[in-house]
């Protein structure tokens, strides 16, 4: 039976993330503040192992943003109030800037800022680390496992050693057992002619 279609929507400050899980593939899109939207589709077997998940922390701009406001403002204040004492005005602006930076530093921890990044051949899949995060990751992993299980069949058109490597990888990923792998290996290598194998060895040695 096919897996049901599941939709996840996440919002991270000003960014919207959408993930629709179809039986065979998934759709991902991300839309920003300026109406720009991008996305891609990917097959579940293209997803990386949990070991290869990465965490991305976008650059913190709250403090920089505060300073970018206060610095020109102080020059503007000095220019439009020529009669006021420059030292008191600058002192006030330094205090104001410190307060703004402190507020920015405090605010940076408020929004959900971290993403789990899954690199696929089509692009980077972003999952905001919020309440839905674990459910999305679990669902993706289960669908990846199911997709890889479907791939555990011998392809007679593929080179034998490449097929052996595929089953070794599936064994390392925990999709098939070690016994299954040995069985598939024996089956595939039974079709390899010894003469071909010897020729390959000879070529590799030199």
């Amino acid at each position, binding site marked *: 039976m096919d897996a049901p279609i599941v939709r996840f929507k996440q919002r991270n400050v000003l960014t919207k993330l959408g993930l629709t899980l179809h039986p065979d593939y998934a759709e991902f899109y991300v839309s920003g503040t300026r109406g720009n939207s991008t996305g891609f589709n990917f097959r579940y077997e293209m997803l990386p192992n949990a070991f*290869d998940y990465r965490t991305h922390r976008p650059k913190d701009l709250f403090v920089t943003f505060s300073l970018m406001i206060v610095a020109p403002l102080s020059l503007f204040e000095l220019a439009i109030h020529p009669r006021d004492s420059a030292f008191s005005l600058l002192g006030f602006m330094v205090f104001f800037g410190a307060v703004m930076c402190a507020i920015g530093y405090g605010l940076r921890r408020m929004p959900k800022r971290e993403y789990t990044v899954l690199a696929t051949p089509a692009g980077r899949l972003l999952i905001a680390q919020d309440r839905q995060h674990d459910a999305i990751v679990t669902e993706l992993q289960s669908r990846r496992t199911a997709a890889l299980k479907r791939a555990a069949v011998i392809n007679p058109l593929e080179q034998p050693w490449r097929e052996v490597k595929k089953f070794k990888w599936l064994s390392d990923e925990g999709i098939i057992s070690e016994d299954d792998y*040995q069985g598939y290996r024996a089956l595939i290598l039974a079709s390899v002619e010894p003469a071909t194998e010897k020729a390959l060895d000879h070529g590799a040695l030199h």
Partner: protein
Amino acid sequence: MARCIRMEPAVYSDGLTIVSQRSIAGGATFRFNERHLDYFGREWDFKAKYEEIVGPAHYRRSKTPDRPATLALMYLSGLAVVLLLRDHQPHYGPEGWHWFMRAVGGFIAVAVAICATIRYATHQEYTLVPTRSGNIVVVKGKQHDAIIAKLQACRLDGLRRLAAPNSANSPGEELAKLKWLRDEGAISDADFQQRCAAVAT
């Protein structure tokens, strides 16, 4: 040179080693596990298997741009211009000239001190170690050489583990792997010959 606060590596009973590089501009934490490295960088956290870390010949070097110091200099220049324009006291003659020179000299001294401080705090040089998951950033500080040495040692250990026969490799691929491991210095010549003989049989 980066301003790193030296932290002694914490070594735990299970062989886990954690090294943190802390600096004002941000440093990374390295957790050396038995088979892989956990890297906690400024923007990226990821894991890397030791055998997938490249050798020293592929390391890259980089440094942060001095943008904060440049911006501070631009701001201070703007401030100086505004302060000079709003000064309504007439400064004519030699005294006025002396006043101007003192003001300019004072400004340059203050600007240089502020910009140098900002550059000292934010400037970083680092070594980039590329991996499949991303770049490992090692800030050039007191711990730089120790971290690089540890990475290389762990890499060699990882490569030595690769020397074990892999049933998914054809004999030819197995021999090519052993040759590469010997070239990388992971196995000795004698070990290479021994393993080659084992593969050939």
